[in-house]
């Protein structure tokens, strides 16, 4: 949180305190009474207490509710007093809810936690929503409005109307309007309810649809409310269908980007150098584990860098996998040029060793890789079309990596040497190119790119020793489908496969869809043995 925001928050709290300070005494008893409900150890009583506490409008309520949602509200065993706690430097610090008295470090054994489940949590969210509607942080205001939308209550209408007057942020405004419309639905006045439906109709959200259906279900058939709600749902459906297709397309691109990332390193080691690297998946895995290690170090030494940990991991993963690749090439693969099948078998052995090495070093269980906030959640690009942010980032990352590879192979001196060596080794050597070094660098490049892919895949998949195995068949298929040695074909091929797969999935199911795609590739290769974009002509036949 920025300093400015923090200051604004403090100001906000002071203002609230000042505003309600005058009535505090009168309400203090109500607040303390309400707190007693938390001691009863039943979810229904807890919820009743939540409602009572928030109804008091007491400024202390927000802290209590927040603590409750986080599971930090405790009942002192000795006198049933309600205390909320926070963790600081490994200590548990307590504050008495009623008096606001700081208790310092407390012994958790003396307390019973007020138990929370989903039901309590939604009640708390709704209650907190009323407090946070005027919060200085936009994110908080939006969340508050979402909470009120999800727990619509006609009682919130005046509150929402009032906060809307001062709302400047468009996103927060939209969220509040939606919450207002939902709250209106719950009113007992018919015109309010119809107005609510009229506004909700314009939103293409599946949750709105759900709400409208609930309203329609409760209303009498043929009543104006029922008719209006049903019509609204019908008009939304057309839009939702369009949105769904757009989303499927996006999901296909996203799957395509995963395929692209998994395969692009292979396109270099296999496509350019002709090494059948069965340990390619393990290079990806090493990249994923690098991310894990980077995050571990950051967590220990400088947690504030967590948001950019993934960005730090990308070059490191490149270096780690690249170094392993160079080692592999210098150590063994260079002895096997001209014996492609042997490299297949040998790298299979290497892949076994790498897997077991990682299993020994990091344990066989999954490792946790945290997503930074800019890779979490969804972004709504149009009404009803919500894209998950991590997928968007991965698509962009895939394109970036692709562009880098194109740049390196086409525009740099190294790329030129690389192409020279793969096309005519003897000639390149005679021109003074150190072919051995170029081989090692090329293999290192392919492996390093695979490592970078691992950073991205760690965001959506298991980080386990088996990570790489899941991608190896797909990667080879994509490279072959796109056309060996053809990077543009790889880009297009992976996108096509991803999109086809995703459009098939709703009809055929995940498994049959995938089987169909595999069979289609097998058949496709019969007709275009050289992939989508094949080099034609004599050069290709030599």
């Amino acid at each position, binding site marked *: 949180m920025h300093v400015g925001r923090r200051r604004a928050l403090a100001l906000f709290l002071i203002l609230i305190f000042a505003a309600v300070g005058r009535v505090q005494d009168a309400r203090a008893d109500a607040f303390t009474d309400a707190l007693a409900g938390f001691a009863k150890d039943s979810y229904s009583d807890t919820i009743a207490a939540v409602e009572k506490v928030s109804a008091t409008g007491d400024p202390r309520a927000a802290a209590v509710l927040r603590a409750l949602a986080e599971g930090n509200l405790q009942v002192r065993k000795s006198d049933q007093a309600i205390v909320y706690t926070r963790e600081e430097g490994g200590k548990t610090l307590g504050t008495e809810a009623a008096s606001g008295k700081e208790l310092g470090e407390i012994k958790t054994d003396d307390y019973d936690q007020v138990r929370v489940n989903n039901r309590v949590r939604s009640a708390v969210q709704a209650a907190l929503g009323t407090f946070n509607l005027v919060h200085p942080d936009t994110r908080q205001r939006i969340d508050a409005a979402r909470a009120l939308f999800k727990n619509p209550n006609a009682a919130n209408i005046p509150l929402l109307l009032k906060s809307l007057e001062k709302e400047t942020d468009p996103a927060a405004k939209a969220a509040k309007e939606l919450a207002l419309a939902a709250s209106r639905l719950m009113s007992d006045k018919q015109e309010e309810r119809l107005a609510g439906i009229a506004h909700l109709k314009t939103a293409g959200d599946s949750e709105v649809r759900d709400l409208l259906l609930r309203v329609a279900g409760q209303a009498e058939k043929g009543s104006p409310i029922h008719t209006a709600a049903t019509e609204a749902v019908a008009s939304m459906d057309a839009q939702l269908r369009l949105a769904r297709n757009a989303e499927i397309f996006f999901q296909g691109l996203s799957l395509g980007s995963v395929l692209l990332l998994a395969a692009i390193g292979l396109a270099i080691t*296999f*496509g350019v150098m*002709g090494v*059948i690297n*069965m340990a390619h998946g393990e290079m990806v895995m090493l990249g994923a584990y690098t991310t894990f290690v980077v995050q571990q170090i950051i967590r220990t030494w400088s947690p504030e860098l967590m948001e950019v940990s993934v960005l730090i991991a990308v070059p490191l993963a490149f270096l780690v996998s690249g170094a392993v690749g160079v080692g592999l090439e210098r150590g*063994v693969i260079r*002895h*096997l*040029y*001209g*014996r*492609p*099948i*042997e*490299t*297949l*078998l*040998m790298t*299979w*052995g*290497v*892949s*076994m*060793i790498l*897997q*077991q*090495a990682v299993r*020994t070093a990091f344990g066989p269980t999954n490792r946790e890789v945290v997503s930074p906030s800019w890779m979490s959640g969804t972004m709504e690009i149009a009404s009803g079309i919500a894209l998950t942010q991590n997928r968007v980032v991965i698509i962009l990352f895939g394109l970036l990596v692709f562009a880098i590879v194109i740049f390196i192979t086409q525009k740099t001196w190294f790329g030129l040497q690389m192409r020279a060596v*793969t096309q*005519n*080794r*003897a000639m390149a050597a005679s021109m003074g190119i150190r072919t051995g070094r170029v081989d090692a660098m090329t293999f290192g490049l392919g492996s390093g790119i695979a490592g970078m892919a691992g950073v991205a895949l760690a965001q959506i998949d298991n980080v386990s020793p088996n990570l790489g*195995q899941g991608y*190896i*068949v797909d990667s*080879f*298929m994509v490279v*072959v489908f796109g056309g*060996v*040695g053809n990077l543009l074909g790889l880009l297009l091929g992976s996108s096509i496969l991803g999109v086809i797969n995703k459009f098939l999935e709703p009809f055929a199911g995940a*498994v*049959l869809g*995938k*089987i169909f795609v*595999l*069979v289609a*590739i*097998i*058949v496709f*290769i*019969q*007709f*275009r*043995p*050289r992939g989508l974009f*094949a*080099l034609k002509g004599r050069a*290709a*036949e*030599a």
Partner: protein
Amino acid sequence: MSARLNQSLGRALVSGARPYILAVIVILALLPLLNLAVPPSSPFYLPDFAIKLIGKWLCFAILALAIDLVWGYVGILSLGHGAFFALGGYAMGMYLMRAIGDRGHYKNPLLPDFMVFLNWKELPWYWHGFDNFLFALLMVLLIPGLLAFVFGWLAFRSRITGVYLSIITQAMTFALMLAFFRNDMGFGGNNGLTDFKDILGFNLHTDGTRAGLYWASLAMLIATFLLCRWVVGSKLGRVLTAVRDAESRVRFLGYSVTNYKLFAFVLSAMIAGVAGALYVPQVGIINPSEFSPAASIEAVIWVAVGGRGSLVGAILGAFAVNGAKSWLTSYAPELWLFILGGIFVAVTLFLPRGIVGLFGQKSDGPRISKPSLANLSKMLGTVPPAPKEQRP
């Protein structure tokens, strides 16, 4: 034909290293007697664990022969031979399932347990006939053969060679694995086919039946070995090796390379199917993981370790790798992947001709040419064969 077969049998058994082979065969044939005829208290008693284990390796050796036939002699590296093995296994498994009859958990005389369980009311059409052992045997040959024929016809006709072929065979077995994992396919999904009771009326859980299956596998291995030997020794075999070494030359000599490859591929698939059919009653389970690409790659590794292009090598490789794996997973359970992985790396680096290279046996395998980038792409097939231009 029989004269020729006898001749090749004689050739196989007499010349060169043949006395050793003969001795090994005799020892292998006598092993079950140490289990059957020797009392368990005797130091010479062989637990049936060993019989089952070697019986399993015998089946793997047959699979290795099948792979060597196409890879070692025709140059087709199939990374999907596990599919043919598994299909043969499933065909046998279906017979064994039907043979359970009403002795399953749900006592349904017609439907296997897993179908009862999925609320299936009648037997799917493709399960009919498998109550007949001979029909099942026919399917053991026909199903892998048919798949190999269709797949091979498509692939060889379009002149897909080298790594391209390897990768699409891998895709084939992967697709089949996904398909067989589906419970809706009617092959028992992930659990596969299990709970077998008996084969041809003999209880599978007795020493006698085990010895019988063991001998059947041994006999089949010898028969397959002789068959392969005869094929590679014939003029057809010489054409096949010629295809491996210079495919286009063979074509310009007027041979239909497609047909020759197809012949070898289908024959090899059928042999693999037979191996699978013998394997299933011995291990008692067939599950879709037999279709996994890793299983197929492993089988190729047996051949590479033993010595590609040598029939004896393929058998040796299957025994050596599986023996090492069985032993290491028990005695070095945390390290065996390092050791086995290391062996694969070492073999490719130091023993390009595999174990038979050690013993100085002349392999029929292609000599390893000097690394030269000029022919690299050709060998790889990374610059793929020219597709046949569209006909007018």
